[in-house]
């Protein structure tokens, strides 16, 4: 009996909503990926005709804005709606609000894109005045943020409704983590939102003449760390709850997973100063405090790595794997979700190490603003996170479209190609950074003696980028082919993994957010209160706007 168009067991699934968000994300991702290839080729200066300072910096602006803000936010919101509906088995609360949010996000994106593509916002993708873009870029960014708040509200309301309807029962892990992410996002954007609303929009409109750069960077740093956990949490949700299902295993510990998500929520927010270690307007004490917090937020990732691998070990043993490592080969690597997880963990092993290096206070002197930094975040966002986003798309698409994936093999191979390309791109990139190559450079027109040592790494990186663009195109092709696949699914239900020990009840802190929200507010006040307040107490001499 074929499943009804867009329902499962009478439940109306938000396929249209989720697919709309995801397709915007993926199409723009493809555009940005091609720009990435252009950048790595341009700066190696191998092809005369491509060399262009303005071209490079406009490309970085667009590439960074799409990859860091648009791809991510649209995907996470779409994923969030679908995960909420399928894990809670509830319809989306207030669909008109969800669509309004989508339109605001899309409108903001288009506005910012206009500014970037017409060369009026060549300030890259981080909000660092006094270099000032056209107001449309900042208003566009603001609309993107405001639109995403619709999702935040809907997640919180749906969770509250489910809990009211199921008193005393554990909130399904997927939605617990999803709601964690919504709350995280709300607190994350406060810093950049304040900077955009009170500094950058007035500045770009000419309503104020000067800007306190120290304050601007501090506010942006507020957002800059937790945003990467906003990106990462859906990947972790997939690692905990979808991988064991795809691999034929179980979640090793439901409660420990919740602890990990709570730690990510609380510890990722008040630690932005590791982005300001080398800045002259925050004191050593504050930097050390944030540094300690940064080490604390590494802990839930170490836990997640172990838990996810242990779940995979379980799956492998259930598949007949024997001995200490036999389970690795026994895993169903043909499943896109399983391959993605294994590759994501390998990349995380490298990228996590790089992150701890960045966090290590004075050690930042060695790597700050060298090519090590973009190498790191490409590995983490473009590697670990995006690998899982691909896998999530392949996992959700059958349910969302009502049609089976056109080819699981193609999906898995596309994922492998991406992972290989990413490692070929980012490993030499890290080395070039350690060898002192500065970041955000359209080339290396320095004296030969400084720059020659970076050349071989730049060349290898081009190969990595090529593999990745092929993989990106393949990804889109796979999804389009799935839309057109004649073979329909038997059920539109999404399978989430069960834990080894199903909790019958949970203490309030592992099932709700009141305690944690309170702690977050206090922790943020302690870590950011005075460091922000100081700018209003001291006498500053602020610069005016500059172009590029």
């Amino acid at each position, binding site marked *: 009996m074929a499943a009804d168009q867009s329902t499962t067991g009478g439940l109306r699934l938000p396929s249209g909503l989720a697919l709309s968000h995801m397709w915007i994300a993926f199409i723009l991702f493809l555009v940005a990926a091609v720009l990435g290839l252009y950048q790595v080729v341009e700066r190696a200066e191998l092809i005369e005709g491509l060399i262009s300072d303005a071209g490079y910096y406009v490309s970085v602006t667009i590439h960074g804005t799409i990859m860091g803000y648009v791809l991510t936010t649209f995907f996470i919101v779409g994923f969030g709606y679908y995960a909420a509906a399928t894990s809670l088995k509830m319809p989306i609360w207030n669909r008109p609000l969800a669509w309004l949010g989508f339109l605001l996000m899309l409108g903001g994106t288009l506005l910012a894109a206009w500014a970037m593509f017409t060369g009026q916002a060549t300030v890259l993708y981080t909000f660092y005045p006094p270099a000032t873009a056209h107001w449309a870029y900042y208003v566009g960014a603001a609309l993107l943020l405001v639109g995403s708040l619709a999702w935040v509200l809907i997640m919180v309301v749906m969770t509250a409704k489910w809990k009211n309807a199921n008193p005393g029962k554990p909130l399904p892990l997927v939605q617990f983590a999803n709601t964690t992410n919504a709350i995280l996002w709300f607190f994350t954007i406060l810093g950049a939102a304040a900077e955009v609303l009170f500094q950058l929009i007035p500045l770009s409109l000419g309503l104020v003449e000067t800007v306190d750069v120290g304050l601007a960077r501090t506010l942006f740093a507020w957002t800059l760390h937790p945003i990467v956990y906003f990106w990462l949490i859906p990947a972790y949700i997939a690692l905990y709850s979808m991988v064991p*299902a795809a691999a034929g295993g179980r979640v*090793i510990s439901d409660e420990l997973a919740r602890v990990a998500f709570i730690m990510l929520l609380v510890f990722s927010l008040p630690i932005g100063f590791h982005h300001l270690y080398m800045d002259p307007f925050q004191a050593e004490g504050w930097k050390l405090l944030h540094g300690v917090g940064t080490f604390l937020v590494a802990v839930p990732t170490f836990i997640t*790595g172990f838990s996810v691998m242990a779940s995979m070990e379980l799956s492998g043993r259930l*598949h007949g794997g024997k001995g200490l490592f036999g389970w690795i080969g026994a895993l169903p690597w043909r499943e896109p979700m399983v391959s993605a997880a294994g590759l994501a963990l390998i990349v995380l092993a490298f990228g996590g190490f790089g992150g*701890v290096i960045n966090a290590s206070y004075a*050690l930042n002197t060695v790597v700050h603003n060298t090519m090590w930094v973009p190498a790191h975040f490409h590995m983490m966002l473009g590697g670990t996170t995006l690998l899982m986003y691909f896998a999530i798309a392949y996992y959700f698409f059958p349910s969302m479209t009502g049609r089976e994936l056109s080819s699981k093999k193609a999906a898995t191979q596309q994922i492998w190609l991406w992972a290989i390309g990413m490692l070929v791109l980012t490993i030499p990139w890290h080395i070039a950074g*350690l060898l002192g190559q500065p970041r955000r450079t359209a080339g290396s027109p320095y004296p030969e003696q400084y720059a020659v040592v970076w050349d071989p790494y730049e060349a290898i990186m081009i190969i990595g980028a090529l593999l990745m663009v092929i993989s990106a195109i393949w990804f889109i092709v796979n999804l389009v082919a799935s839309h057109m696949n004649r073979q329909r699914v038997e059920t539109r239900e999404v399978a989430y993994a069960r834990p080894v020990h199903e909790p019958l009840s949970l203490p309030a802190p592992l099932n709700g957010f009141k305690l944690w929200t309170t702690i977050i507010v206090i922790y943020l006040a302690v870590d950011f209160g005075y460091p922000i307040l100081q700018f209003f107490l001291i006498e500053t001499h602020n610069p005016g706007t500059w172009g590029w």
Partner: protein
Amino acid sequence: MAEQSSQPQLSEEEQQKILETPPKGTFAIMLIYAVIFMAAWFGIYFGTLIARGPVSG
């Protein structure tokens, strides 16, 4: 997307035994990772940062 797809037929008992088996392989891998991690961190901290001379301000 059912849980068990094409695995060897395990009895309920065998399955339960596996579910209770501690993750020794994972622990071994993570232990090796931790050792390499610490060595590399100390290597960069003392071999690069400290070796390059004093830094403060």
